[in-house]
């Protein structure tokens, strides 16, 4: 590796890692928004994945891939439990229930000694390098892109536009919604585990309401027409505060404003690309 590049990577180590992690989080948000649902539990799913994998690393000798698997499966179980009662109701219920999940998790993490209480967990081994983070991100992007370009993606788009019409066309709404929520929980859990093993420290307040809304702003800024929109949103909103230092104190103000403006004035986001499906264009 050339020395200059090496220097660069060293200086911006944590920024580069968080770009990848935030990209995964944006994709996890995309999966839910793509079928017209709103989950405010992405941060909680991320927290569950982070804590699960960190505790496994600190207390067991499990191979890292197995820890990552656990970091995906445990949030998936939470998603099943939250989705089962709420997904058959109007979208408001999922949104509110996932907020509730986030708060329960935060209270639990702060109170429980096992999870390090308010101090969180530190000394998590740095097992997640750039290669792993970006490998996961690339694999997830590719998979989602291919799915968006298939009949599954078409059905997802149909649900987002009009779920009643999609249902009478034969799209199995409960199954699509549940699968989307579970997949998004797995992606967020993976992001959490990678983040924990890249930054070596996690705390109970990293996964609250503000984090959930920030993840939402990534996807809304970029647009949910394709996975690339959400990725672009994460990229912009992660880099912006680094480039414009004064913005850092107002990071959340900006995120909030972006959500308002995106929903009101740019429903297609920064990247209004439509998925390239076979036969969709002349």
């Amino acid at each position, binding site marked *: 590796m050339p020395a200059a590049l090496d220097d660069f990577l060293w200086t911006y180590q944590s920024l580069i890692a968080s770009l990848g992690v935030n990209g995964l989080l944006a994709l996890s948000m995309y999966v839910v928004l793509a079928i017209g649902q709103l989950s405010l539990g992405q941060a909680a799913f991320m927290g569950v994945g982070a804590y699960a994998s960190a505790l496994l690393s600190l207390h067991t000798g499990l191979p890292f891939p197995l820890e990552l698997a656990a970091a995906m499966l445990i949030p998936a179980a939470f998603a099943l439990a939250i989705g089962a009662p709420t997904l058959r109701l109007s979208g408001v219920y999922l949104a509110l229930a996932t907020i509730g999940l986030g708060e329960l998790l935060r209270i639990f993490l702060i109170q429980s000694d096992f999870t390090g209480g308010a101090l969180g967990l530190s000394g998590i081994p740095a097992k997640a390098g750039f290669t792993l983070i970006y490998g996961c991100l690339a694999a997830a992007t590719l998979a989602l892109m291919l799915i968006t370009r298939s009949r599954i993606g078409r*059905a997802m*788009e149909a649900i987002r536009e009009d779920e009643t019409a999609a249902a009478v*066309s034969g799209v199995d*709404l*409960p199954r699509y919604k549940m699968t989307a929520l579970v997949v998004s929980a797995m992606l967020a859990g993976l992001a959490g585990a990678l983040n924990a093993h890249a930054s070596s420290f996690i705390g109970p307040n990293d996964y609250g309401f503000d984090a959930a809304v920030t993840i939402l702003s990534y996807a809304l800024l970029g647009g949910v027409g394709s996975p690339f929109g959400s990725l672009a949103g994460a990229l912009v909103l992660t880099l912006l505060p680094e480039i414009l230092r004064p913005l850092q104190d107002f990071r959340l103000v900006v995120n909030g404003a972006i959500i308002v403006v995106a929903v009101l004035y740019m429903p297609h986001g920064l990247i209004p690309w439509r998925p390239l499906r076979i036969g969709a*264009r*002349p």
Partner: protein
Amino acid sequence: MSAAPLLSIKGLTLRYGGLAAIEDFDLSVTEGALDALIGPNGAGKTSLFNLISGLTRQDEGEICLGGARIDRLSPSQRARRGLARTFQNLRLFAEMTAIENVLVGMHLHVGGSLIEILTRLGRFRKAERAAVEAARELLAFVGLSPSEYAPAGSLSYGDQRRLEIARALAAKPKLLLLDEPAAGMNPAETAALRLLLEKLRAQNISMLLVEHDMSLVMRLCDTITVLNFGRKIAEGPPDAVRADPAVMEAYLGVRGAAHVRGDSA
């Protein structure tokens, strides 16, 4: 006539608060029939379609399709059993192109497992291409070939109605429910619609048609069922229904009074 009717409804009742939108309603549609369901505004026609397609659940009664109960199934399961419908207030996927709308209608028939999708194997491409080909044919069939790649929301009203029919047909239904397909169409479009319905009948697709355009109904349909305040008040061939005094009264009596109504689909 074959032994068992394609669609059979018994004792169907749906209440909204104190008001019964559908009350103790019976109906059967035989295979290959083109039947009509008429009635004044607010009579409960759309409510009945919503019950049959599974968007609302009945309070009482049963619905059978092809001899099997479907009234506890979800809308998509009913679609799988051969039910398709259009909507009175157009429900297209407005930002998707016309051809993509039809492709969504084909959802149940396009193959391709997740593995095939992720690897984009030949089988997947072949299935998608075949579906696109079939969708093109359907668009040609309803006369929308020139607008294949136009966003559905940008089409004219009449074209949107035809696109909805194409999307419903894409599911290869045994029974097609059409909710006021001629509403908002000009006479030329209505004439084209009539031809289309006749072609469908020739293909032996059973249809139940809700329509306010009486000349269309009288000319096309085999059996007419008349609904008023959620109850069946007459049933029979066009001539008999036309002559029925109860029908005259229902129409003349209620047409005058503007009905405030809420559409549920």
